[in-house]
């Protein structure tokens, strides 16, 4: 067991190192120079002032140092939880910008990923081999999963937001409110949350349902199912075993979904102008905000690694064969 997790941790550590390095490199290879566009945006025409500002900002962001030193500084700062100062929302620290956005993204993604997984699996398993249900769940699932989620988002915003006027079309909470722990505010927050949630939930739902349905059919036709059936086991028992086996690939799928969930809502957040990480990433790229981009990507890297690690553990719990494999490795 220790060996299993030790190996996993080593792989994660290496992945982390490589990811951080790439993360540091990519923005620096983007065309254009953030400092000069920052100065240009300032619209200062005085030549002396331009030079002073340029030097000042170059020093401030540490761009005057040799590359290897910038890289070393980056690691040092990272371990202190310091992602630098945002260029876009100058002079706010990146960590502050990200922390303001993270709750919105997690609040949107965790429920939509988990609920769609649960409901999708349930619907898929339930529908498999029941002709009437299969004939309805399958096409609906295909339509949902084939739907680009931003398109669905736009449809929802238009239909339920603008035309019906039931839901708001933009923002994390009403522009007339200020954050507080009142019932009014929380209700408003949920009201704004429904549409983005729904657009993510519905699209993911279809995929899970189809996957599960196919897996269950496959399992029901496998030898052990036929054997059980020949022994006269009740259909419910067979289905239970089939479900247990069928859910394993679905768990792997969930792991991947959980990993990218931080970034996954990017387009949805933009459509609803929901103030989460996705909107931040877009803005960071548009404004060549190295530091913000690094910070958000860092979050995604950490998210992917942590989610995968959790799933590794979950696997050990739900799949006896993994445990058997580890015991075998130790022997």
């Amino acid at each position: 067991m220790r060996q299993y997790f030790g190996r996993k941790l080593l792989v994660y550590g290496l992945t982390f190192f490589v990811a951080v390095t790439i993360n540091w490199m990519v923005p620096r290879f983007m065309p254009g120079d953030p400092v000069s566009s920052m100065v240009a945006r300032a619209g200062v025409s005085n030549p002396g002032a331009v030079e002073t500002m340029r030097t000042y900002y170059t020093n401030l962001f540490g761009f005057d140092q040799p590359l290897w030193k910038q890289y070393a500084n980056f690691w040092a700062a990272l371990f202190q939880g310091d992602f630098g100062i945002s260029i876009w929302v100058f002079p706010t620290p990146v960590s502050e910008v990200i922390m303001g956005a993270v709750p919105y993204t997690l609040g949107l993604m965790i429920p939509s990923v988990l609920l769609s997984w649960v409901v999708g699996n349930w619907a898929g398993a339930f529908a498999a081999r029941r002709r009437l249900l299969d004939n309805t769940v399958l096409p609906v699932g295909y339509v949902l999963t084939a739907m680009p989620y931003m398109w669905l988002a736009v449809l929802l915003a238009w239909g339920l937001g603008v035309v019906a006027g039931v839901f708001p079309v933009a923002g994390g909470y009403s522009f007339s409110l200020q954050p507080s722990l009142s019932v009014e505010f929380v209700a408003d927050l949920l009201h704004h949350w429904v549409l983005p949630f729904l657009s993510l939930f519905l699209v993911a739902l279809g995929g899970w349902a189809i996957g599960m349905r196919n897996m269950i059919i496959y399992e029901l036709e496998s030898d052990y199912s036929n054997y059980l059936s020949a022994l006269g086991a009740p259909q419910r028992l067979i289905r239970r075993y089939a479900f247990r086996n069928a859910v394993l690939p679905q768990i792997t799928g969930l792991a991947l979904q959980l990993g990218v969930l931080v970034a996954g809502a990017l387009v949805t957040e933009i459509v609803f102008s929901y103030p989460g990480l996705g909107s931040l990433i877009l803005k960071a790229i548009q404004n060549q905000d190295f530091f913000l981009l690094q910070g958000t990507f860092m979050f995604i890297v950490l998210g992917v690694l942590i989610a995968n690690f959790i799933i590794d553990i979950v696997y050990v719990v739900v799949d006896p064969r993994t445990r058997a494999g580890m015991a075998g490795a130790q022997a």
Partner: protein
Amino acid sequence: MRNRMRIVVPLLAVGLAAACSSGGSTPAPQGSQAGSAPAAAPGDGGALPRNETLYTSGTQWGPPANFNPLREWDYATGTEGLVYESLFHFDGNAGKLVPWLAQSGTWVDDKTYELKLRQGVTWSDGKPFTAKDVVFTFELGKMETVPYHNIWEWLEKAEAVDDQTVKFTFSKANYQEWDFQMYSRAIVPQHVWQGRSEQEVLDGKNENPVGTGAYTYKSHDQDRVVWQRRDDWWGKTGLNMEPKPKYIVDIVNSSNEVAMGLLLQKGMDLSNNFLPGAANLVKGNFGITTYYPEPPYMLSANTAFLVLNTTKKPMDDPAFRKALASSIDTKKIVEGVYGNLVKAASPTGLLPQWEQYIDQQVVADKGFSFDTAKAKKLLADAGYKDSDGDGFVENKDGSKIELDIIVPSGWTDWMESIRVIAASAKESGINITPDFPDFNALVDKRSKGDFDMLINNERQLSNTPWTYYDYMFQLPVRKTQNTVNFGRYENKDVWKLIQELDQVKTDDVEGMKQVMSKIQAIHLDEMPIIPLWYNGLWSQVSNASWTNWPSSVGDTPKTPPTMWRNWLELGGFETLTQIKPAS
């Protein structure tokens, strides 16, 4: 089945718990943010009343990151105008300065300007506003990184004679530019700003701003800033006006779709975004109006120019530039791309508000208009011929002419426009290819002079066309050109005339006209920068919650309906005092 439910139920519970807890936990970081801002009164978590709140958008493109009126390019909307005020406002219709914090300003002799300040003006922290604050604000400009640093090249000293009088002494009196400064500079309180280092002045967030204005800071978040009316504002008695909305919420732009959605849902009252289908919004029955009920729907705010890089061949040749000017089908841009939301510009580029300064005789003699045949003739006369038969003219030395025209990627109206320009120039035999680099990349190329041609409209309406000419012709050309003369056009004669214009007193309209006529003649002869169309003062208003918006019809106000930077001083603030709650 029961077993399956055993798995499903806890997972469902986890999901719901996550949903609820994340919903509930969201306010925590926000709350702490609001808590750190002293002005946010605790306990009034309730909704802002709709009939007392004005929702605006179209100015702010990123989260409100600072309230520093010296960061003129990215302060939170309203920092200048609502909180900090200027000495004068400028009334574009009457074409004159309106006393604001100042009661009057007079030139006592050719190089001395005396300001009399209003009495009874107080800062939002209760301290009186005096001449020392004005002197302090102008002296901040001695710091190199302050945007108005250059006035100290011709301003000698500023001194407070008494609490109500400021005397400015000049080494060279630039009357035109001085009037511009008078309504542009936000006056900051000495007792708060004194002792701030240059870095704090340049980069400071200036949280909880203390100003003389009619509003104070209430709260802000990533996507909004909220201002609250100050009930002891001096202007209630001093100017006999009061802004009607108790709260102003300025919403950060995300996209046109969102702005449109909010407008249609009656969640936004004043949208200063460019909405491509604005004409349909006005014609449809949505309760949305614009300044004019018919084309061009909007007031004109600035001129879109085609900037030519005059350091490159063949754009260094005036004959080629004039041929190019004649080859552009501006009408097609106005009608096809904008659906008549904009107007074609005068060949001089001067805004309609400055029409009296345009010398019609010069325009009739030297002006250009779209005429493919004429463009072809001009090219042929100047020696540009199509010698290899590919349909495009070549340089005089026989090398191919292949020019790029650039606008930022995503600026869809401009992208369409340069496609039209490229197509119509090709008709005349000039090979132009449209290209759409990223905005930052474009800024980079523009300031370094690494482009062929581009479109720019950064200069706004002001008190004097001098600001336009400064933008077109300013010398000397530097290594990086950040705000003016992107085309690096060097002409000492015209620059001398522009400096001459600067030194004409602003009430001497005839004198201004005389100098400007000469400038216009050189501009039209040389054509280093080609005026295309007047961009609108994009403004779509909803009449659901607030009415009496400015418009061309009836006895509605005639002030510009906008929250754009520096436009509150051009009458945007006055608009706020004239609108009325709908119910």
